[in-house]
């Protein structure tokens, strides 16, 4: 497996939206390199004939009836907001477009 470079860690931090200091990037690059090398062992036994399991127990078709519940009072909804205005959550300007 390829080793985890500083640049790669910085790219991942960007994807994960976490500001890291230069020191943190250096340290993580070293630590993650060791960890990745260790966990990469999984590919040794993960042959194509083995099916993947994403849920511990094989359940299917769990549904809810389309019946409304009482919504949160708007004051409760906004109570923990760092900033709010006119019943809405106030957030810093959004530059990137979705």
């Amino acid at each position, binding site marked *: 497996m390829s080793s985890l470079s500083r640049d790669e860690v910085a790219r991942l931090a960007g994807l994960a939206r976490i500001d890291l200091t230069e020191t943190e990037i250096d340290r993580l690059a070293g630590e993650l390199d060791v960890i990745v090398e260790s966990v990469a062992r999984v590919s040794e036994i993960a042959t194509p004939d083995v099916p993947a399991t994403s849920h511990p127990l094989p359940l299917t078709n*769990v549904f*809810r009836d*389309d019946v409304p519940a009482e919504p*949160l009072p708007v004051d409760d*909804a906004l109570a923990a907001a760092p900033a709010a205005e006119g019943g*809405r*959550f*106030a957030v810093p300007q959004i530059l990137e477009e979705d």
Partner: protein
Amino acid sequence: MSTQVTRLVDYDDAVRRFDPVIGIEVHVELGTRTKMFDAAPTEFGAEPNTQVTPVSLGLPGTLPVLNRTAVEHAIRIGLALNCEIAETCRFARKNYFYPDVPKNFQTSQYDEPIAHDGWVDVELEDGTTVRVEIERAHMEEDAGKNTHVGGATGRIHGAEYSLVDYNRAGIPLVEIVTRPITGAGERAPEVARAYVQTLRDLFRALGVSEARMERGNVRADVNVSLRPSPEAPLGTRTETKNVNSFRSVERAVRYEISRQAAVLDAGDRVVQETRHWHEDTGITTSGRVKSDAEDYRYFPEPDLLPVAPSRAWVEEIRATLPELPAVRRRRLQAEWGFADAEMRDVVNAGAVELIEATVAAGAAPAAARKWWMGELARTAKTDGVELAAMPVTPAQVAELQGLVDAGRINDKLARQVLAGVLAGEGSPEQVLVARGLEVVSDDGALLTAIDEALAAQPDVVAKVKAGNLGPVGAIIGAVMKATRGQADAGRVRELVVERIEQS
């Protein structure tokens, strides 16, 4: 927005030299009472953040539970689009950070859609039918809404911010993706529009959504690419997002064809990108290019279980499918005895339901068509409103025609009665009475008028008695004039002839 002027090639020239290929993604908001994964209500137009639960806000600890009705609606859409319904399918998480996405991932079906490999026939205005192949229809959730506040350009940073309302976050969506639509040639914009319109009609007929374009219930992303000839491989495509009216779909495709042709003519390459549609100016502009934008780190949503619709359930849903719009149109045309061209006009005018309701209220199909496609269509056009928005009900139109059929008014009076109804003066009967427009059917009053007319033209009687019926018309005309048109011309003729014979 770019200040640089975008060069365009004349549309006719563009489609002469390039073969356009389009692809359309339509998102429809399902009309369920609750959200996709959450029992929060979905009332439209409610006060901000009043249609939310801890789940809709993505609060720590909350979990999704799938709405059965939303799944049923998705299957219904899949069946109506002649799709295969998956034996089993899953949800995945699409990870990206955006303030209107409360969990910072969207729960969506990624590689396992609930419906796939279908088709739908789309009828163009001239009656040509185009078959559009459907690649997939999958379930996902809508995002909240951002409102940008403050700051024109030039303000200091921090002066601008956004306000977020999560009422829409989690509303169930079904996204329908076409395969590349080829062979439409210069009619590609028209096909795109007709396709979206067809889906809108379908959603309404299926009862899965109110499908109101102006509310954003139905939203389209249009993909356009050009190639030198139908034999050439597909060109690089652009995706124009959120084109939310039929007319805009047509315009956006048309614009992209002209723009891309200019890019290619200049020897440049079309950039694969997201573009934005500007309703006001009718142009598309390049979206901001995001680094890492494509790395959504999809993985199966561990908080939800696979959906494995039993074949029995699918068949049960299939059995409840209503008659689909195209089938219904064919049936109604046969029942009503309309010619192809007549029916097409009716469809294009959006008058099918109106005529159907008018017929149901007792009017003959031809009469119903005459009113809606004639007087009412003209008035609607003059007033610039949709036919269905005219202030007259199909029942009133049927009532109006009933008055004509009963001989109480003639066509000319009927138009005056209709004008009264449209003016809000009440039902046809009420207008007729209030305006005193009833046909004069009192023989006594008519005979008085006839006698006066005969007295004024004494030579007529002699001519008629001599076997020349021609001058009767002159008498009828005089009587009609005297009664200001409110007489039944047929009855007047009978009485005139009777009177002359008696004299």
